[in-house]
Structure formats: C-alpha cells, structure tokens
C-alpha cells in the first residue's frame, strides 16, 4: 500500500539514499515543550523554502495574567505558538483535526485498558517517619502542652450535661397534689437533667400558697416556657465551667508514616557499530512508552541511561537515543555499571527497580553466559528485560537474547522480547509488563 512505501522511503531519506537531503534532517521531539512532559524523538526532513529569518521575524506570544514588560527575555519561542511552524502541526494542509495532550497517568490508564493489564505498583513501600502536627494527645505532660481547648470543651460539655432550667422545675412543683418523686419522674421523661436529691432539696422552698397553681403537669407545660441551655448561657453568661482533672490532656507530635512508591528505571542500550538507524528507532519506540507507563504508575520515577559498546558509560536522556559509536560489544559492561549505580543511589530496600536493556543480541563470545547472566541474577530488581531489536529477523551470531531466555526464561522477573518492526512494539510492551505482573 502506498503509505507503507512512503514511510519506508522516508526512513531511507538522507541515510541509505538521497544524501542531498541529509542537511535538512533534524531529530526533533514530539510532545509539548513543558519540561515535565515526556518527549518522543522524531526524524524530520524540512525541505528548504523561502522563509523569513527567524530572528528578524519576531512573533506574538501570550502571557499569563498580564504581559511581560518590554525588554524582558521571553525564552525560546516555541514552534507552534502562533508560528504555524511544522512542529506539532501535522497535516498542515488539512488542518481540521483537534488534539489534546495526555499526561503519563492517563497514558498508563489507557495502556492498562488497551492491553488488559492491571499492574499495581508493588514491591516495597518506602517508609519515612516525620514529625507531624501536634495532634496526638496523652494524659500527662508538661504544662505548656496542656490542651486547654480540649479541657474547656470537656468542661463545657459537662456543664451542659448537668444543666437544667431550675425555674421550670420549680413551676412543676406547683402542680396540685404532686410529690417530689412525681416531679422527678416527670423531669426524666422530658430529659430535664435533674437529680431526685435536688428536687427534694428544693421542695420545701416552694411557698405553700403557690402549690396547686396548676391543676396538672399538662396545664403547667401549656403555660410555662422552658428556657434552653443556650438561652440561659446567653442570658447569664458562662460563669462557671467545671474543669476536672480527668479532662486534662497533653499534646505531643504525631508520628506520620509516609508511604511513597519510588521507581528507578535503568535503560541500557547497545550503541555499537552494528546498531543502525532502524534498530535504534525500534529501541526508542519500545523504551519510551515503557518509561512513560512507569512514570504514570509510580509516585516518583527516576531514570538512568547507560550506553555501551565494549565499555559502558552513563548519559543524559537527550543523548541516549542519538549516540552511535564504532566499537565492539560487551553487554556485561553495562550491567556492571548498572550494579554500581543502583547500589550507590537506589538501594533495593527503598526503590523499585526496573532494568531494561536493548540491542541486536550481538555480544562478545561467552560474555552472556559467563558475565551477564550471573549479573542479572545478582542485581535485585522487580524486572529485568532484554529487548532484541533485529529488523528482518535474527542474525546467526546474535544469540544474547536466546541465551538469556534459555537460562532465565523461567524466572518470574525476567522478560525477553523480540522486536523486528514497529508493529511488534505493543506486543513487546505487553510481554514485559505482564511478566512483572505475574
């Protein structure tokens, strides 16, 4: 079909053929220029055109909450910011589609859904003890930490619990032919918190001529309003709050256990002479979504990039996919470096670890069995994966992946996958992530 061929030819442009276009190739990034977003490297061939000089042209920007003052630096203008540049604007001619950006968490969710994965970040949870707010309380302690607020509230509660409208109860005593016990009963029924002793004490203070003012409790209730506690406190003010020893509490800081799910991902790539453009791109296509997925899954993700030929060295992400060296290959060099870096910076007790390596399976003789496999067994990790990128099938002497698979294929933290063209990527990702899942 036409497009597949166009794509094939595009990949070759400036590399296998059409050297005249080599000077117009750049490797840009997909994704927003937001520093936290993950970028997808992409090859761009920009045919020359009559265009304005970028510096002389200037442009229009949009401020947030006001515009910057004249003369203030505005940073590198982003392509696409009104510039109608090539970046981020595919199919310029059609121009009728709508996009929105997705963040790593959404991406992880989509991928879970797409592949039917349900990888819950597991492994250890990093425990930290920190001093919390003074929220916990004990019954003894220095005066300065006495929780007076609590003492006051408890006292107030107590007062409210024992408070009642004395005048109301005295009125009840004026009901004809009643007794202290009857009044007490009546109080209880109406939730007036009075004791029998109090009623008996107060009984004799009621003047004889007022007894029989009411024919019945009902009549009395119909004519006298009970004053609520709140009304009474408002009227009388809060004169007396019963503080009690048993209500005293002393505050002390709480111990908070903070749990964070950390992950470190070690990406290892063979950059030796045999790793040509197409293989290189397959590595990117596989590693990038894996990195992104794990970023979305964990609270905190860190990445280590190791490039190797016969020797290994640590590189920055922006250089990782671009490097090409001439030397031979010794994969164990990368695992040795990974081991050192992990021990030094990411102790197994605190970090989830993923070690992903990719290459074309070529290795110096016996290095795989004698060095790499023991190292893989030795380095504790949630998952070790090897991705063989070999467009057009395996070469005869490229046996690293096979050997690893033979020796460690049964281990539940080792995955080996083969990617020979872009269509295999999703399967490889599935293979890798579902291994860790099991």
């Amino acid at each position, binding site marked *: 079909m036409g497009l597949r061929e166009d794509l094939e030819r595009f990949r070759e442009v400036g590399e296998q053929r059409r050297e005249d276009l080599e000077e117009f190739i750049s490797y840009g990034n997909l994704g927003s220029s937001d520093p936290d977003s993950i970028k997808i490297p992409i090859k761009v061939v920009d*045919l020359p055109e009559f265009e304005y000089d970028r510096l*002389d042209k200037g442009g229009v920007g949009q401020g947030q909450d006001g515009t910057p003052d*004249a003369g203030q630096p505005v940073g590198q203008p982003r392509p696409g910011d009104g510039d109608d540049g090539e970046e981020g604007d595919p199919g310029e001619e059609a121009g009728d589609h*709508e996009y929105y950006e997705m963040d790593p968490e959404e991406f992880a969710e989509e991928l879970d859904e797409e592949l039917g994965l349900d990888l819950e970040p597991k492994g250890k949870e990093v425990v930290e003890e920190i001093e919390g707010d003074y929220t916990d309380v004990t019954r003894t302690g220095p005066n300065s930490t006495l929780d007076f607020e609590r003492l006051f509230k408890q006292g107030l509660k107590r007062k409210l619990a024992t408070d009642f409208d004395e005048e109301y109860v005295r009125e009840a005593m004026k009901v004809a032919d009643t007794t202290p016990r009857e009044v007490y009963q009546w109080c209880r029924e109406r939730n007036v918190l009075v004791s029998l002793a109090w009623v008996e004490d107060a009984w004799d203070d009621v003047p004889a001529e007022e007894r029989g003012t009411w024919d019945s409790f009902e009549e009395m209730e119909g004519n006298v309003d009970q004053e609520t506690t709140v009304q009474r406190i408002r009227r009388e003010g809060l004169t007396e709050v019963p503080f009690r020893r048993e209500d005293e509490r002393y505050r002390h800081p709480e111990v908070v256990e903070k749990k964070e799910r950390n992950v470190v991902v070690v990406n290892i790539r063979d950059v030796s002479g045999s790793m040509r453009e197409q293989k290189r791109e397959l590595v990117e296509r596989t590693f*990038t979504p894996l990195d992104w997925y794990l970023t979305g899954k964990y609270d905190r993700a860190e990445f280590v990039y190791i490039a190797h030929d016969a020797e290994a060295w640590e590189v920055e992400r922006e250089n990782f996919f671009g490097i090409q060296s001439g030397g031979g290959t010794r994969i164990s060099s990368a695992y040795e470096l990974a081991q050192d870096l992990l021990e030094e910076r990411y102790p197994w007790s605190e970090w989830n670890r993923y070690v992903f390596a990719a290459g074309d399976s070529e290795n110096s003789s016996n290095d795989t069995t004698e060095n790499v496999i023991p190292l893989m067994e030795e380095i504790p990790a949630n998952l070790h994966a090897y991705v063989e990128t070999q467009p057009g099938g395996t070469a005869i002497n490229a046996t690293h992946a096979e050997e690893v698979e033979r020796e460690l294929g049964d281990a539940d933290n080792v995955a080996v996958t083969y990617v020979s063209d872009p269509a295999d990527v999703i399967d490889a990702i599935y293979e890798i992530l579902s291994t860790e899942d099991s």
Partner: protein
Amino acid sequence: MKDDRIDAQRAANRLEEPVREAAALARKLGLDPYPVNYWVVDHDEMNELIAYGGFQNRYPHWRWGMQYDRQQKQDQFGMGKAFEIVNNDDPSHAFLQESNSLADQKAVITHVEAHADFFANNEWFGLFKNAGAEGDLDATAMLERHGDTISGYMDDPDVDREEVERFIDAVLCLEDTIDQHRAFTAEDDRRDPGEYEDLRDRLDEMDISEDVQRQVFDDEWLDEFAEREREARIDEPHEDVLAYLRDHGRQYDEEKERAVEMEPWQKDVIDMLRTESYYFAGQKMTKVMNEGWAAYWESLMMGDERFAGDDEFLTYADHQARVLGSPGLNPYKLGKELWEYVENTANREEVAENLLRVRGITWRNFHDVVDFEDVRAALEPHSAIEGVAPDSLSDLAALGDDPRVDADALERAREDAVDVERYPWKVLTYEGLAERHFSLVKRQNRGFLERIRRSDLERIARYMFDDEKYDTVEAALDDVDYTAGWDRLFEVRESHNDVTFIDAFLSEEFVTENDYFTYEYSRATGDFRAASDDYRDVKKKLLLQFTNFGKPTIAVYDGNFGNRNELLLGHQYNGVMLDVEQAKGVLERTYQLWGRPVNLMTIVKEYDDHDVEVAQRRNREPEPIEVGTRIRYDGDRFETHDLDDDLRERIAAADVDYDTKPEEWLG
C-alpha cells in the same frame, strides 16, 4: 479478535440520526454546506488520512511517510487524539474516529457541517473551485488522478524513480510561490516576460548582411533596446513562479553541457503540483476563520441548541475545553472569538441604530438616557420562542402567521410527527432561531451594548434622516432585526481571508484580554525579548504571520537576466529579511527546474561588529545596515553581488513596517 467491520457498522448506524439532524439544523441556521459523506474509520485509517491531508490517495512521496510516522507516534504514545478530518470537496468527505464517544461524534459532526459550509461559500475557496472547466470540484478524483499519473512516471522503465522524487522535491520547495490571490487558471494568462527574444538572435536568423547590421543595429543600440525591454518586463513581476517554470523552465543536460527542453513528465509534474497548491491555498489562507467558524457553530448547536443530549453535555463541555484551551495562539480560539465579536458588533449597531431613532435620544446623550438593563430585558427572546417544548406548542401557534415560526413543522409537531422534545429548533425558522440565540442578551455579552463608543454612535447618526421615527424605546426595540448579527457573519465568511479578517476585527479589547504581546530578537543581548503589548503592534505581527502564508513574497522579475537567459527572482522586501541559508537551498533546487543560472535579489540586514559592541555597552539595539544583494547560483557554486540601485528600488517596499521594538527598549 473483534470483527472490525461490525464495530464500524454499529458505530455508523448509531450516527445516522445525528448526521441527518445536524445537517438539517445547520441549514435552519442559515448555513449552506456541501453535502457531506461521513465515514467511520479506525485509528490507523485515521492516521493514514491525516498523513495524506484528508484524502485516501496521493502521489507517492516520502513527505506523506514523514507525516504518517509522526501521526502514528502521536497516536501510539497517546500524545494526542484526532477526532475528525474533513476535506474540501463537493460532496465533502468527513472521517470520524470509531472510538469517539457519541458526544464527541456529535460535536465533530456539527463542526464538520460548518467547515463544509465554509468550503462551499468562501470566495477564496471559490478561486479554485470556479476555475474548473466543468465547474464542479472533484478534489478526490483529481488527487487520485495525480497519484496514478505520478506512479506511472515512477514505474516507467525509461525514467529513474529517484529522479522523479528528486524533481518533486524541487517543486515542493517552491510550492507556496504561486499567485494565490488570483483565480486559478491552467493557462498562465499573464503577460509573459519570457517571450521576449533577443533581437540579436532574430537578426541572425534574418540573414541581414553584416554591414547593415553594423550600421543600423550597432551594439550600443542593441544593448539599449535590450535594457528598455528588460525594464518593461521588470515592472510587472510574475508571482506565479511555478507556472513560469513550467512554461519556460529547462533542464541541464550533463552530456550536451547545456540546457535542453524538459521531459513531458517534468512539465506535467510541475503542472499537477501547482494545481494542488492552488487547491490547498484556500485552506491555508483561511485557517483562523475556518476553524473559528466551525468552533462557533459547533458550540451554538451543541451547547445553546442542546444537540448534545443532557447526559452527553458534560463530555462535550470537556471536549470543547480541551480543544479551545490548548495554549499559545490557538486558531480555534482566536477565530471563534473574532466571529463572536463580529456578531456582537453587528447586533449592537442594529440596536443602537434603532435607539437613535427614538425621539429624544441622540448620540450625545445616548449613554445618559438609555437604561441598558431595560433594553436588555426588552431584547430577551419571546417566551414562546425561547422555551419551545412539546407542551407549549400552543403558545407558538398563538403567535399566528409569524415569520419566526415554521408553520408546516409546527403543524406536524402538533400531530406528534416531530420530536420537539429533542429537536425544538424544528418548529422555528432562521428568524426564530436568530431571536432565540440573540447574542446581546447572553450572559457573557452583558455590557457589550453600553461599551459602544461615542464615535461609533456619531458615525451611525451622521447619515440618519429619520431620527424621530419612534416615540418610545419599546417601539424601537420591537423593530430590532434579530438576524442582523448572523446576516453579517454570512457576509464576512463569504469575502474575507485570515489577513483581512484579523485586520478588520482584531480589537484592542481582544488583545488586552488575552494578554497578547510581541517579541523581537535583541542583537545586544542575543535573545528574544518582549517588545510591545500595544494592540496595533500585536496586530501588525499577526498580519505578518498570515500574509502570503507567513512567508516572504518571491516573484519572477526576469527570464533573460543579463541577456543570458538567467532567471531573476526578487524577494519583495517588507523590512523583514529572509532566511538566506534556506533561500540558497531553494536556489539549488530551482536550478534543476530552470537548467540555467538562477539569481535572487533580496535585501540583507548586516550588523557592524563595532556597532553591536557599542550598543551592548549602552544597552540599546544596534542599527542594521540594509544591503541590496543578488545571490547567483550557476549549478556549481554561489556568488554574491551587490544589487544595482534601480533593482533594489523595485523590490523594497517603503511603506510597511513589521518591527515592534519600542524606542526605549532595553533600558
């Protein structure tokens, strides 16, 4: 494995009703779209369509592969989701992604109907459409035909495939150097500077004796003659560079060591790619308008007219927020807001004009005597129009023979043959819907009416004769034509392009509210710095980005430069210099289409090192020296010459200025 076809079929069935009703609603609202064929596609097919610019077949070229690669990565890594693509064709074809939710699909369909209306009615699209011999646009067939023809050339055993590809690349470097403001014609009907023959050649052919030739046509006379001819040609630069190269271009023959005629396939390739450039020019020239137009009507149909069901409304609101909310200078947002401004302004003029005809209201006392709260209340749509519902149809009927009511539909609705619950708009006419959605009473436009400037009122009042037509404000408002805003939208969508649209309607208010500012490069500090937030400056910079596809204008000035058949291109300098390195790359490829040396006149800004140093010390900008330059490429190497003053005069425009650096900038 799921059966994809069944999924697609199911999705299609679900969409049948929304498609039918959206098209009907669009027409009720006054849109006049091409008929649209909708296709439901999966995400891979969508990626392919996007790569091919909205079509299923294009000529073989790696650039589609590049776009496909990007699109696929974007899709694979979840960086962005394409909802739809629609192409400019009659009928239009719209492709909907199968995985969209129903709310998304409805939004996309309303959006597409508005695009199809724009394609059909905007004059800039008409420049191509109306040029076809048979008068109908059949872009799909045209592009497919081009694809087949070019594939044929590539498969031709006598033609090297890579040579065809290389040739296409050369043409693509010049794909925007066409005369997009003129109607497309297959023939190049401009007066042709290339037709000029050197008189010497003709004299040679005429076998005139050397004596006569020496006496009558001496070298001095011949040179003067050639000079006069050249002057005449150069006065009329030829902006359709592609047509010029097609008609007069040659190819350099390595063996014969001279330029020879192009092969027929070469002329044909230029011709086809030029035609495609003209076809796509309409779209490129109206991006802001077209996207804004679609966003405006989508929002009206989906939101205000509730084409989204209640349960879908939230999904839709989210969809819209994402599309309009993306940062930077977003054509959807810019366009939509400009259209709303056009609508509000036209409605405001209509209302103000009627108010100025009330006895006692003049442009001087307008703001003092008019109670804008009362005016707004009086402008609210009639309750029967606003609240169309199955149980209130009798209120509509009570209006009698009213232009706002679609009497036939109302009749049928009362017999329960129209689903008024879901499609209340069916019982209204364009007039009725205009009243129902009258912009000035919408919450977000409160205050727009009273913000009218006194100078605008004075302008309206100046030519008004009948200025005591109404005794009361109520009577004046009763006469307000609610369709004024929409009528104006349709006029503007017919005649404008992005440049004229932004020029006419980008207001100070808009620039300030959106915090737009310009930036310029500082030679003194070596970085980009904010320059101005004056709306005139912002507009100026924006116009630079939209004029001539945001690129410098290049034209053919001479096809026989220096009397040696060299091509002379000129950059029409507007104060912004071009990218010289890229221009050289283009010249190398233009050489492949001309077969003889090619020249480009331009003006380059140079900075004296000493000036820069002084400027840095004093915290100001160095003054550039503008140098007229002619860059010549002869197939092997570049030469740079100073440009003759008379030529320089012809390419330098004196009255434009896109520089927005303030006087005191870095201070």
